[in-house]
């Protein structure tokens, strides 16, 4: 793997470089996408449905969750389709195939960083200062990346044989988003499902992000360590099993893709 680090770098670089080529707005899309979603969710959930935002301004409340969520969703989406999309590489050159889904996940980091500055801007507007837990943000990003990669490994390998995956992913991501406290907070669900929600690793990531940044204005918010522990273990299981499954099926990719 280490031997191929340069190739990984070039694959990430290609993904980033190509993503917004021949678009009139270019990099603006990275900012526009979360802004538009934030506006829609604010109107529907914040204003019309009055979803409690634990005292934080709803736009900041939803954006602080949307940014890690969008990173995760687009990384998972890209990595799941990455192998099939790169079938010309898979059938013509040898390199560890894991580089393909891995580079898809990593290339999303650039978008994440740009979108994150947008969030900081919004916080400045609302005069919200982040809590010291913001130092944990890279850890949350790592957890989101590992989760996206773990599921991406499973789905991309399955996608080689069953193209059904292509059709399943949009539904999967939609359901998953509503199962994750993006537009609502964990307080809405209450303690009944607390640990159950921790089974979804993205709950830990999204809640962690939100609480680390908005904790100063939110009521009774603390980074929930037991919940994070459950999330991280689930991610580890998915990642390790995904890696094994990927290694196991890798040898037949070129024959069936």
């Amino acid at each position, binding site marked *: 793997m280490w031997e191929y680090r340069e*190739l990984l770098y*070039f*694959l990430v670089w290609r993904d980033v470089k*190509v993503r917004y080529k021949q678009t009139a707005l270019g990099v603006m899309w990275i900012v526009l996408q979360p802004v538009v979603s934030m506006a829609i969710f604010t109107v529907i959930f914040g204003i019309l449905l009055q979803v409690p935002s634990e005292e934080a301004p709803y736009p900041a409340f939803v954006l602080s969750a949307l940014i890690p969520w969008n990173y995760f969703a687009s990384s998972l989406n890209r990595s799941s389709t990455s192998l099939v999309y790169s079938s*010309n590489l898979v*059938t*013509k050159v040898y390199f560890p195939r894991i580089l393909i889904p891995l580079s898809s996940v990593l290339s999303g980091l650039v978008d994440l960083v740009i979108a994150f500055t947008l969030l900081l801007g919004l916080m400045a507007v609302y005069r919200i200062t982040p809590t010291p837990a913001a130092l944990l943000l890279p850890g949350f990003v790592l957890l989101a990346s590992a989760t996206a990669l773990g599921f991406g490994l499973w789905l991309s390998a399955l996608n080689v044989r069953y193209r059904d995956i292509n059709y399943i992913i949009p539904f999967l991501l939609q359901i998953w988003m509503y199962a994750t406290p993006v537009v609502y907070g964990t307080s809405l669900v209450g303690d009944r499902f607390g640990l159950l929600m921790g089974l979804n690793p993205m709950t830990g990531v999204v809640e962690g992000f939100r609480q680390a940044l908005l904790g100063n204005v939110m009521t009774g918010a603390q980074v929930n360590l037991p919940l994070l522990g459950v999330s991280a273990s689930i991610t580890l299981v998915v990642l390790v099993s995904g890696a094994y499954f990927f290694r196991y099926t890798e*040898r037949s990719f*070129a*024959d069936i893709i």
Partner: protein
Amino acid sequence: MSRVAVSVEGLGKQYQIGHALEHTDTLREALTSALRAPRAWWRRWRQERDAQQEILWALRNLSFQVQQGEVIGIIGSNGSGKSTLLKVLSRITEPTEGRAVIEGRVGSLLEVGTGFHPELTGRENIYLNGAILGMHRHEIAARFDEIVAFAEVERFLDTPVKRYSSGMYVRLAFAVAAHLEPEILLIDEVLAVGDAAFQKKCLGKMGSVAREGRTVLFVSHDMDAILNLCPKALFLANGTTAYLGDSGEAVHHYLQSVRPLQTGVVDLRSAPGREAYEYPILTSVSTHRPDGAVASEFRTGDTIVLRVGYAVQEPIRSPYCMAHFTNDVGHRIMSVSSMHDHCDIVLERDGVLECRLHDMRLREGTYSIDLAIGRASPVSQCMDYVESATTITVQLGDYLGGGRLTDHQGVVAQKSEWSSVDTSLPVVGSVIAGPSRYAGVSWHEE
């Protein structure tokens, strides 16, 4: 002491070819039967699926060794397993049985421009493609100018390659690949791209790679390229070694396998190498001595009589007939045509055309003859073609007064007369052509 670079033992690669599933029941029936008796339905579905899987061995029991620094050509007809072999050697796909051991860094070039991204510029694609082919960034940077010069795309370096002409694209792609420096290079048929001049350049590059002492395995259908570049060749047939050794021999075996020797009087009505553009016209072919006796062995300088039987559905007013001579390593040596001398032949119903080749200059060897027949006007149009319709063998005899030609002395024999010239006299010529006998071809009808 040479080292083994590639060692292949009992290699086999199996593919399952699934046939299109033939659904006999409608979707509703399938659903109702699946719901009523799910287990029976599942069993039946699996049985049907398995019955439709056919197994194909692309490679089987293949064993060979390549020493370090050897340049080996791989030849064989389509489907003989050449590309599969390279895929296994380059680790793209795993063998079903047996093993392949490779000592050294492998670079494989199974396709030109793998991983090129149309949106990226030429410069960016050089780096990307180089990395995909296994080069390090500093290696690419060091050879960047060389690559650009080789590809002749200096002016377009910062243009996305999607705006390149296909020629430029291929040149750039090959240039990157040509500057790979692995210890073992696997190349699949990549020279079949680009224009003639660029192909020549690529061959030159490959030749220099080979001389640098790197191990090269080179798949091609171009027998000239194989003979020029590879001292040794592996001839694959049905996924296993049919011949491994001297490339001339390998090419010879390969060409014989694709076109079995036909001599004497040959009935062409069921010829395997036929390509009838309108309908089968050529019915037979035979080779004779000038006295009319059927023969397939000649000597250089002989007159050969070629008789071509035909049958047409309606008369062809201005027809032509051609015969192409190809030697045993696949070079086309000469073509004779009824159009060359404006010989007036007419094809009505059926009959025989006769062609006399006077003072035939071919050197010793086996020559296969392809026949073509068609209309000469208003536009020249081939109507029927038979590849390797017949074969003749030629002995040099005493055409050169007992002289012999080595392998590197050309494809035709030519008499010559040499003498010392008195330098005090004005120079007229140092080589005087041989006897001015009439050398030519005449076609006429019987």
